[in-house]
C-alpha cells in the first residue's frame, strides 16, 4: 500500500502533465490513522496545556466582561455619539470574516474537485464554527438588553404584538449568520462521522467508546453508509456554497444600504466576500502551521497545501486592493462632496494611522507571496498571515469608525476612543476562539482521515496507471 515517494520530496514543483503528490513520505492508510488519532489518544503535550490555560483564562475574562457589560450597560464601551457602532461591530464583522475559509474549503473547493482540501478542511471548518460563535456574541450583547435578544426571532410576540423589522439589514444578518452557522455545523459534523467511528473503534476505555459511539451515529462503514454519506456531502456542499457568499454579502449590506458616505457603495458585496476569504485563510494558516508542527502532521499538511492557501490569500488580497482603489476613484469620479470628503478623511484625517495600517497589511503584505520563498517557508507565512489578520481588523475599524465619526453634520463630529472593556473583549474573543480550537484539537479528528485516504488511493492508482 505504501507509495514510494522519496523523503523530503518537494511537492510544490509540478511538471505540466503530472500532478504532485498531496500525501508525502511512506504514508499508508495505517500511518494516516495513527498520526491523526494519536493526537487525541496520547496525554496532552505541555505546549497544549500551556496554550489552553492562557486561552481559557482570556476566555473567562471575556465572560466576566460580558457579565459586567450586561450588569452595567453598554456605556462601558467607548461607543459614543456619533460613533454608535464601535468595536463590538468591528469585532463582529472581523470574526464573521474569519469564519469564511472553512466552508469555502469544504464546499466550494469540493465542488471544484480540489483534492488538496482534504488535509485542511476539517480544522478550517472547526475554525469557521468557532469564529461564528465569537462573531454572534457581539451583536447579541450590543443590543443592550441582551436578555431580550430573542425579539430578533420572527414570531408574533405576545408582549409586543409585532414582528421584527424585516426591512432592516440587521435582521437579515440574524438569518444569514444563523443559517451559515447551522449549515457549517452540520457540514462539519457530518463529515466527521466516519472518523468519529474510527475513534470509537480505537477507544480502550468504556466512557470514551460510549461518547464517540454516540457521536458516530452507528456508523459501520458499509457501502450503503458510504453511498448515503457521499450523496449528503455533495448536497450539503451545494447548499453551503451560496452561503459562503451570502453571509458576508449581507454583512456588507449592513453598511451599504445606508446613506453614510464611505458605507454606501455598490462594490461592497463582492469586496466583502473577497476580504472575508482573505482573512479566513490567513487565520487558517496562522493556526495550522504551528499545529502541523506540534502534532507532526507535515506529511499530510504539506508545503503544497500551505502554498496553495498563500496563493488564495494573494488573489483575494489583490481583489481587496482593487476594490479600495475603485472606491477611491469613484469617490472622485462621482464628484459627490460628502463621498469625496469621506475618502480623503479616511486617508488623511484623524484616523490616517488606521487607514495606512490597513493598506500596508492588506494590500502590500500579501504581495510578498509573489515570491516562492515566502509561500513555502512556514514561519514567513505565519508572519504575513498575522499581518493580514491585523489589516483585516483595521479594515472594519476604518469602515465603521471613520465614516461615523465625521458624517454629514460637522457639529456632531467626534473622535472614538476604546475603553478597557473594548480591549478586553477583543482579546477575550481571541481567548474564546483559541480555547475552542484547542479543545477541538484534543478531542476530535483534526484531519479528515477518510478523505485523505481516498486522496492517497487516487495517488497510488494514478502512479501505477502511468507505468
Amino acid at each position, binding site marked *: 500500500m505504501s507509495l514510494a515517494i522519496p523523503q523530503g520530496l518537494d511537492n510544490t514543483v509540478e511538471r*505540466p*502533465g503530472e500532478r504532485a503528490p498531496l500525501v508525502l513520505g511512506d504514508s499508508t492508510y495505517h500511518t494516516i490513522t495513527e498520526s491523526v488519532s494519536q493526537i487525541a489518544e496520547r496525554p496532552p503535550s505541555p505546549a497544549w496545556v500551556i496554550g489552553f490555560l492562557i486561552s481559557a483564562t482570556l476566555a473567562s475574562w471575556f465572560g466576566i466582561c460580558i457579565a459586567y457589560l450586561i450588569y452595567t450597560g453598554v456605556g462601558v464601551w467607548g461607543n459614543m455619539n456619533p460613533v454608535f457602532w464601535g468595536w463590538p461591530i468591528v469585532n463582529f464583522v472581523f470574526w464573521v470574516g474569519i469564519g469564511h475559509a472553512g466552508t469555502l474549503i469544504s464546499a466550494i473547493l469540493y465542488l471544484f474537485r480540489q483534492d488538496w482540501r482534504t488535509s485542511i478542511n476539517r480544522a478550517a471548518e472547526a475554525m469557521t464554527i468557532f469564529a461564528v460563535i465569537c462573531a454572534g456574541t457581539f451583536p447579541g450583547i450590543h443590543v443592550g438588553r441582551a436578555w431580550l435578544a430573542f425579539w430578533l426571532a420572527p414570531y408574533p410576540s405576545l408582549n409586543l404584538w409585532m414582528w421584527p423589522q424585516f426591512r432592516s439589514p440587521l435582521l437579515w444578518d440574524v438569518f444569514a449568520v444563523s443559517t451559515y452557522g447551522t449549515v457549517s455545523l452540520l457540514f462539519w459534523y457530518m463529515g466527521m462521522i466516519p472518523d468519529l467511528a474510527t475513534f470509537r473503534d480505537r477507544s480502550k476505555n468504556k466512557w470514551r467508546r460510549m461518547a464517540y459511539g454516540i457521536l458516530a451515529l452507528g456508523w459501520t462503514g458499509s457501502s450503503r453508509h458510504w453511498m448515503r454519506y457521499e450523496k449528503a456531502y455533495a448536497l450539503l456542499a451545494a447548499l453551503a456554497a451560496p452561503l459562503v457568499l451570502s453571509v458576508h454579502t449581507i454583512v456588507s449590506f449592513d453598511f*451599504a*444600504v445606508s*446613506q453614510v458616505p464611505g458605507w454606501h457603495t*455598490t*462594490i461592497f458585496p463582492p469586496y466583502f466576500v473577497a476580504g472575508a476569504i482573505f482573512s479566513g485563510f490567513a487565520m487558517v494558516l496562522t493556526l495550522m502551521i504551528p499545529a502541523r508542527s506540534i502534532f507532526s502532521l507535515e506529511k499530510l499538511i504539506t508545503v503544497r497545501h500551505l502554498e496553495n492557501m498563500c496563493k488564495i490569500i494573494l488573489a483575494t488580497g489583490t481583489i481587496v486592493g482593487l476594490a479600495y482603489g475603485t*472606491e477611491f476613484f469613484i469617490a472622485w469620479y462621482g*464628484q459627490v462632496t460628502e463621498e469625496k470628503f469621506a475618502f480623503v478623511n479616511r486617508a488623511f484625517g484623524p484616523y490616517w494611522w488606521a487607514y495606512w495600517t490597513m493598506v500596508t497589511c492588506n494590500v502590500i503584505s500579501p504581495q510578498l507571496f509573489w515570491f516562492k520563498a515566502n509561500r513555502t517557508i512556514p514561519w514567513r507565512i505565519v508572519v504575513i498571515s498575522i499581518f493580514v489578520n491585523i489589516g483585516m481588523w483595521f479594515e472594519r475599524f476604518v469602515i465603521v469608525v471613520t465614516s461615523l465619526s465625521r458624517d454629514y453634520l460637522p457639529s456632531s463630529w467626534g473622535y472614538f476612543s476604546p475603553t478597557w472593556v473594548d480591549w478586553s473583549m477583543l482579546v477575550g474573543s481571541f481567548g474564546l476562539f483559541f480555547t475552542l480550537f484547542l479543545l477541538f484539537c484534543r478531542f476530535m479528528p483534526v484531519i479528515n482521515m477518510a478523505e485523505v485516504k481516498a486522496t492517497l488511493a*487516487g495517488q497510488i492508482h494514478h502512479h501505477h496507471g502511468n507505468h
Partner: protein
Amino acid sequence: MAHHTHHPKSADDPSFKLPESLAALGVPLVGIGGVLLAIGLIMGLLFGPTSEVHGQTRGPWSFTLSAYLVAFTFCFSISLGCLFFVLIQHLCRAGWSVVIRRVAELFMIAIPALSILFIPILLSVWSDSGVLFRWSDASFGDHHGIPQLVWAEKLRYLNSGWFTLRSVIYLVLLSGLAIYYFKLSRLQDETGALSLTERMQARSGPAVMVFSLVTTFAAFDWLMSLAPMWFSTMFGVYFFAGSILAAHCAIAATTYLLQSRGAIRDEVTVEHYHDLGKFLFGFVTFWTYIAFSQFMLIWYANIPEETEWFYTRLQGNWQTLSYALIFFHWMFPFLGLLSRHVRRRPNLVFAWSIYLLVVHFVELYWIVMPEFGKTLGGFGGLLAAALLTLGMLGLYTGGLLWFIRCKQIKVLAVRDPRLPESLAFENL
C-alpha cells in the same frame, strides 16, 4: 478517481482541423456581415428614432452609434471573457479544460482585429457634439444644471483626448495579452515543449491583474460614462459577469458546432459539456448576484445622485424590459440549467448557450440604449440595431474562420502536456 490512460491521437489527425464546411463560410460571412452592417447603418440613419433628453434633441446619428456600440460590445465581451477563461485555466493549472481551451483562444485572438471596429466610437467622441457620449458636448453641464465646478472636474477625466488615450491603452494591453498567449499555445502545437506551459502559467497571475484593471476601467469608460453623472463602483464587476457568461456560452456553442461538423469528436465528451453547463449555471447565478446587489443598494439608499440610471430604466417600455430581464436572464436559465440531466446533454447545453447569448445582447441593449432616450427604438430602429449586430457578428465569426483557415490553426491544443488528463476527465 478512475483515471484511464488516454493517449491523444496524432497531432496531424484530420479531426483537429477546422472542418471544410465551416472554413468555407469564412469569406461569405465577412461579405454578408459587411453588407448587413452597411444596411444597418443606413437604416439606422434613415429610420432611427429621435428623442428628447433634458431639452436636448438626439437624432438618428445618436441612435445608430449607440446601436453600433451595443453590437461592438457584444462581440468584444465574448472575446474579453474568453481571454479571461484562458488566463484563469493557466493560473489554476487546470486539466479538465484543455480540450476546449483552443476554442477560447480562437475567440480571444479576435481582440486585435475587433479593436479596429472601435474606431467609429472614438471618432464620435472627437466630434465634440455629444452624439454618443453626451459628455463630449462641453455644454452638457449647463443643460443639466450641473454646478460648474463639478462639471469642470468631471471633464478632467471625461474628455476626448484622455478617453482616446485610455481606450488605446486598454486595447493595446488586451491585444498584447491575447497575442502572447495565442502564440505560445500555437508554438506548443509544434514543439510540445513543457516550458511553454510553465511560461504561460508563470505570467498568468500578473496578466489577470492587468485584465481586471483594464476591464473595470473599460466598463466605466465605454458603458458607464454614457450616463455622464452616474457612478457605481460595482459596474466593472457587473460588466465582467455578463462577459464571462457570454464567453462560456460561446465556447460551448462553438465546440458543439465543431463536433457536429466532425471535428474533435473523440476528444470533447459529455463530461466537458457537463462542466461547461455547471459554469453556465454558476455564472448565471453570479450575474444575478451582482446585478441584484447593484440595483438593491441603489434602490434602497435612494440617493438622488445615483438613482438616475435605474430611474431611466424603470420608465415606460424600459420598465417592461427591466422586469423581463429578471425572468430571461435569471429565472429561466437558472431553472433550466439546475438539473444535471440538462447539463449532460450537449444539445441542451448548446441550446441554452445560444439562448443566453441572445439574452446577453438584450442586456447590453438595455445598458446602452436607455441613455439615448425613452424609446426602445421603434420598428425601424430595432431592425437597424439587429442588422448592425448581425453584421458585426458576421465580420467577427467570418473573419475568425478565414483567419483559422489561412493560418492552418488546429481547433485543439494538440500537444498540451495536460491533454491526456483532459481526455480522461470524468465528473464523479
